[in-house]
């Protein structure tokens, strides 16, 4: 199978280039990550992140034939050749397919992604109805792979000011949690021409999310809450 892979090693390359590989696959190779590891066995200098190989850790996000995804759950049979692999767009490249995710995590941290409560907790668990808990579905499952934020033009232009779809999805995860007591503070934190309102509902985020989540919808709900508290 034929691949064209983005290569850049800052110690020896003046600028990035695309390198072609032709690799013989085994019948057990089902996913893109299997093929990349065959390539890495031939050329150990190929840099990529990987861990769980089942789509839950979020390590191996990359741009695959023009669309962001996780290599370990992208089936080889669905890919057109040559398979063009590039690092996630919009973030500085450290090496090959490895990007510097500092900006992405900084935005994630900026939404205070943790439960905030004033009321002291009870002896046992806080009670929450199954319906209230269901509000968190489609939010808490995020694996922080950055496929969404790095497919968002607004995040490309303003990665330092726009929280981006992943961060906003998590912002809403806590706004939606009936146990959280900081909704108003959370909305204040986002009421800003850039942090939230740079989302122009282009929907790339929902389109690429490997977990089938929909950040645009969550962003819409945050905006609804802002409108609600104004009236």
């Amino acid at each position, binding site marked *: 199978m034929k691949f064209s892979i983005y290569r850049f090693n800052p110690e020896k390359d003046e600028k990035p280039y695309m390198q072609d590989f032709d690799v013989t696959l085994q019948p057990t190779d089902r996913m893109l990550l299997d093929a990349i590891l065959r390539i890495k066995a031939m050329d150990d200098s*190929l840099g990529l992140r990987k861990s769980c*190989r089942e789509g839950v850790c979020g390590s191996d996000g990359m741009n695959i034939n023009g669309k962001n995804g996780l290599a370990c759950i992208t089936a080889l049979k669905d890919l057109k050749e040559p398979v063009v692999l590039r690092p996630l767009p919009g973030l500085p490249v*450290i090496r090959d397919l490895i990007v510097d995710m500092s900006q992405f995590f900084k935005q994630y941290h900026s939404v205070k*992604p943790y439960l905030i409560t004033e009321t002291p907790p009870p002896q*046992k*668990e806080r009670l929450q109805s199954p319906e209230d808990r269901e509000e968190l579905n489609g939010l808490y499952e995020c694996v*922080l792979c950055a496929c969404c934020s790095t497919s968002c033009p607004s995040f490309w232009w303003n990665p330092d000011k726009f929280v981006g779809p992943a961060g906003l999805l998590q912002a809403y995860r806590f706004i939606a*949690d009936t146990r959280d007591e900081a909704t108003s503070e959370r909305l204040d934190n986002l009421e800003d021409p850039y942090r939230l309102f740079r989302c122009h509902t282009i929907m790339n985020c929902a389109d690429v999310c490997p977990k089938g989540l929909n950040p645009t919808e969550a962003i819409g709900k945050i905006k609804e809450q802002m409108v609600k508290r104004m009236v």
Partner: protein
Amino acid sequence: MALPKQTFDAVIVGGGGSGLRAALQLSEAGHHVAVFSKVFPTRSHTVAAQGGIGASLGNMQEDHWLWHMYDTIKGSDYLGDQDAIEFMCRKAAEVVYELEHFGMPFDRNADGTIYQRPFGGHSQNFGERPVQRACAAADRTGHAMLHTLYQRNVRARCQFFVEWMALDLIRDHEGAVVGLIALEMETGQVVIFQTKSVILATGGAGRIFQSSTNAFINTGDGLGIAARAGIPLEDMEFWQFHPTGVAGAGVLITEGVRGEGGILLNAQGERFMERYAPTMKDLASRDVVSRAMDQEIKEGRGVGHEKDHVLLKLDHLGAEVIQKRLPGIREIALKFANVDPIREPIPVVPTCHYQMGGIPTNYYGQVVVPRGDNPAEPVPGLYAIGECACVSVHGANRLGTNSLLDLLVFGKSAGDHLSQWLKGNPQQRDLPKDAADRTLARLDRLNQATTGENVAEVGLDMRRAVQQHAGVFRTGQLLSEGIDKIRVIAERARHTAIQDKSQVFNTARIEALELENLVIVAEATLVSAEARTESRGAQARDDFKERDDRNWLKHSLWSMEGSRLHYKPVNLQPLTVESFEPKVRVY
């Protein structure tokens, strides 16, 4: 060579469930803590845990920590230390409630309490009937827990060193731990961290097996670090084979599927577990179910062209239950087995899943070694928690849901104990002058070698050898042949060469260093398994089919120097209740 140096009160190696739980305890107590992780913390392997956290909350039926304790001891095939098991089971409710208070999105019952599902080996009233004890967040409990703990650490402003690989401990002439040497992956820089204490929380080494549910990062780095520092490894012969890995792919399918009512079928469509475990059936403990599956396959009742797997049927649960309680499983089955479990069964085989053994500790997480007459003397400043540690609460076989519980209980306990210990030991000890010499020599060899063994090939040979010689069923001959093979492989691993010599994010170098740790674990496994001439829990010897309490009710301790074995007694004395005497195990 002068290396850069930084100073901390405590250094935690590993940012998974146990490391994060300990970090939280120490950060909130105001200590200057650093957490090192090879990956961004939420990418740690805790994220892949699915089914639940064991705690006798009694939200579904009557439950009691003593029943949980009994189940754990029986599950361990009586090799677990009963003081540590009592400690864990009594603390379970407290740490689960805390996790809920941290924001964990547990599933809920109609009355608002945490939803609990049945799991293998968990029973009411000392084995009478299955009980719902596994506190669950759909089938993504580990993911929800790891993210919650990370988030709480963000709140506590804990300091992380992300994408750093720990290489070696530094001990002084008295044996106290005084520092850690680590490699920053992004720059290739090696740094010495002077510290009053180190907590190893590096997870398991399931990557020694070819067929494994484990992530690529599970390379036993903490075990290699400990072994090189002269710490023995305990009970390394005991590896859990999870009954339901996706055939061919190895990806985990939670026991929660059987908890929710899924059943295992052989080629004849028979629910064969009824024959092997009349009371608990498909919810017998994992070693029992894995052996039964292997037996069915061996006797020709396997499914598929090669008759090499069995089927996990769950379509009878209905689409609604599957979508609500097991959505992640459906995703995995669709992606990795090409079946939709709402309509078709999933092909499954026993797959290496969990390391019961590890770095010996007590229930405060202190690493303990034999010294004089004391089989368990703490090493000053050194702790180990989570899968890399052997407390031992899992003994010869871990019960499902007890691993996440172990991370929470002993992460917290080690954090608390270390917090106190630091008060009595406020001084940094001096670093020996030659602190980094051996580590730098290892790195230099890798940097210099232009020809040598290929890391990927040696790794593959190691995984094949361990799979072939230390699988579900073992014999003395198979194991001793395995030892010979692994010694050759270990020698090859000392002569690897990487083509890539660059500094910036050199993953070839990382994988070569990981291989060095893996082969240590592989040798410990084979040597410990060969010596233990009995069948107990996950160690099933075809040539010694019975458990032998007279000779083998004891923990193995393997030392890297000379690959020697010694033993220490099992602690059969709980903290406050009466001892559970070893009995024949029937499910």
